[in-house]
């Protein structure tokens, strides 16, 4: 029977596929002893072998899709599967105490994970998850029920889950063409990942997902948030036709994407790509990005067990700069805090982390961390056209402080005769309402500004973007947010510096005309959105865009 549900359209696009219900299965067994020792040991060894093979496949898929450093976690899993204190201990309990392999596996895994989860050190505590993860996989293999792997699904799968963690979405293969979750909002990590992968997503569908069964045919509309389960034949063929039309549109947009985008009255709008790691550069180039408008450097920190060294950072920055010779590459300095934690950073527990010690505030309070990154950036600057962007700036004095830190790093390098470019541009991300309101003064101190609409929206409307209870209040097209965008653009124009936008709003082709009307000269977005936004820009006439923007500003 056809059923309709509606959630939050979090990544645009249409898809038709087969439902795959994704559940984290926690198997649990009872204590049990065995009589046939040799067949039990054989069962155990076969399960270890199967587990290793699965982890190796996951490792390779992750390395291919996300890069070597993302795949490193699976090396730890493989090491555990050879560890004499872990696997050896299980084997000994089977051998000497005649324990069943499943019970030995479950109890040793439980003992180790509770040892680690009670440690003081955050990094060690996080290892408890790895132990449980690999132990649970081994247990499932012993039971002859190998776990469902996101990386090993049949083509045209649509994932149905309660929620998806970043480590789960990291395993997504090309077989997954859409995602549906019960929880989450438009700005959840899963949503950002879906947009990066270019697959449609509907999140926050609530209990409706319980009506979906494995193998159901699903129509997913990532723009409207509509989900149709087991659609009637007629509807199915209509949607199929629509999808093929859209594919043609995207293909033709891509053909024209190599050309710079001008409005019909010859106003140039630069279209750049947001990236999260050097792996994303390929996609940015393939979609004809005119540079990088936002390189989030957090990946370097989030995937490491310790602070990334100056050398590690330098090589990532250099790689991206070299991929875009003579085009701007805007690299944002570390933005942690808020909802992003580093296990080794020992961030204080805060009542209100989004209003706490995050991003540049953390960096200014931890000059060693900050200066390591600044030195890496300065050293990389000779390999391209580097623009450094500081997040969460709210006042002129913060700009002066970061410029002072940058100056000190330049002095250090000069003393050591290490070269850096003298063409580096310094800018800020406008995401605190104060920065937009005070933009005229801030603009006098910087070379560019870029508006981060995700945070600007949540701070302006006081609506937590991760909280589905208030997600309906989170609206980047709210006239108050657009007014702050306009104020920022106007201040940039008065100061003669570029006004950019790198938040999610910039990649929404249905908003391009209003954004151009508000005065933006540069839009930066997920690479996949570039061709259609460029196409949209070519249809725009500045005068009409301005009046459309005016209308949006006065919407009630």
């Amino acid at each position: 029977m056809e059923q309709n549900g509606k959630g939050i359209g979090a990544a645009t696009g249409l898809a038709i596929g087969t439902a795959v219900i994704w559940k984290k299965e926690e198997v649990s067994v009872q204590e049990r002893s065995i009589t046939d020792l040799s067949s039990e040991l054989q069962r155990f060894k076969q399960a270890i072998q199967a587990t290793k093979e699965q982890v190796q496949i996951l490792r390779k898929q992750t390395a291919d899709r996300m890069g070597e450093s993302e795949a490193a976690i699976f090396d730890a899993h493989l090491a555990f599967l050879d560890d004499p204190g872990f696997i050896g201990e299980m084997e000994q309990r089977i051998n000497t105490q005649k324990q069943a392999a499943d019970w030995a596996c479950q109890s040793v895994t439980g003992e180790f994970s509770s040892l680690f989860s009670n440690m003081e050190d955050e990094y060690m505590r996080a290892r408890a998850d790895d132990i449980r993860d690999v132990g649970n996989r081994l247990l499932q293999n012993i039971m002859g029920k190998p776990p469902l792997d996101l990386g090993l699904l049949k083509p045209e799968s649509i994932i149905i889950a309660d929620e998806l963690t970043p480590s789960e979405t990291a395993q997504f293969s090309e077989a997954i063409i859409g995602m549906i979750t019960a929880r989450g909002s438009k700005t959840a990590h899963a949503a950002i990942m879906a947009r990066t992968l270019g697959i449609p997503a509907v999140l926050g569908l609530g209990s409706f997902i319980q009506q979906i069964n494995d193998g159901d045919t699903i129509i997913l509309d990532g723009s409207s948030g509509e989900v149709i389960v087991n659609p009637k034949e007629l509807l199915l063929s209509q949607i199929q036709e629509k999808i093929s039309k859209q594919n043609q549109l995207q293909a033709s947009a891509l053909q024209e994407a190599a050309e710079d985008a001008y409005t019909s009255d010859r106003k140039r709008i630069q279209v750049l790509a947001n990236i999260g790691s050097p792996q994303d550069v390929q996609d940015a180039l393939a979609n004809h990005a005119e540079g990088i408008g936002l390189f989030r450097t957090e990946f370097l920190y989030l995937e490491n067990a310790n602070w990334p060294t100056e050398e590690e950072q330098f090589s990532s920055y250099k790689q991206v700069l070299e991929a875009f010779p003579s085009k701007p590459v805007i690299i944002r300095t570390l933005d942690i805090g808020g909802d992003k934690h580093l296990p080794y950073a020992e961030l204080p527990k805060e009542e209100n982390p989004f209003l706490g010690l995050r991003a540049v505030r953390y960096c200014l309070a931890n000059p060693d961390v900050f200066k390591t990154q600044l030195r890496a950036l300065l050293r990389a600057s000779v390999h391209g056209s580097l623009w450094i962007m500081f997040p969460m700036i709210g006042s002129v004095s913060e700009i002066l402080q970061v410029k002072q830190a940058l100056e000190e790093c330049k002095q250090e390098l000069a003393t050591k005769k290490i070269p850096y470019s003298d063409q580096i541009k310094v800018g800020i991300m406008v995401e605190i309402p104060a920065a937009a309101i005070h933009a005229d003064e801030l603009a006098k101190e910087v070379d560019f500004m870029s508006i981060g609409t995700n945070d600007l929206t949540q701070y302006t409307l006081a609506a937590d973007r991760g909280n589905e209870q208030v997600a309906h209040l989170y609206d980047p097209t709210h006239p108050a947010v657009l007014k702050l965008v306009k104020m920022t653009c106007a201040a940039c124009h008065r100061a003669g510096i570029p006004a950019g936008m790198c938040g999610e709003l910039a990649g929404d082709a249905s908003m391009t005309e209003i954004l151009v009307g508000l005065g933006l000269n540069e839009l930066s977005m997920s690479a996949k959105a570039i061709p259609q936004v460029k196409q949209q820009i070519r249809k725009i006439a500045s005068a009409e865009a301005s009046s459309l923007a005016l209308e949006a500003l006065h919407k009630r």
Partner: protein
Amino acid sequence: MTEKTVVIQNSTGLHARPAALLIQKAGSFKSSIKIVKDGREADAKSLLGVMSLAIKGNESITIRAEGEDEAAAIEAMTQFLESHQE
């Protein structure tokens, strides 16, 4: 069986990286090697075992080796634990 008590010099203790180096060293010997801290014993050739002891800087632990190269094993382990710094 040979046994020796040593004090960890590395100020941050035996966290992931030094623990990995230690088990590599232990793995190069034929003898069975154990590390004992506060009555809890772990296989020195097991990364999870060594890490699970949560050994901190300046703590004292006992190394126990049994096998044909036990003397050399104790010598090498002691040297590593008393000199490694990072």
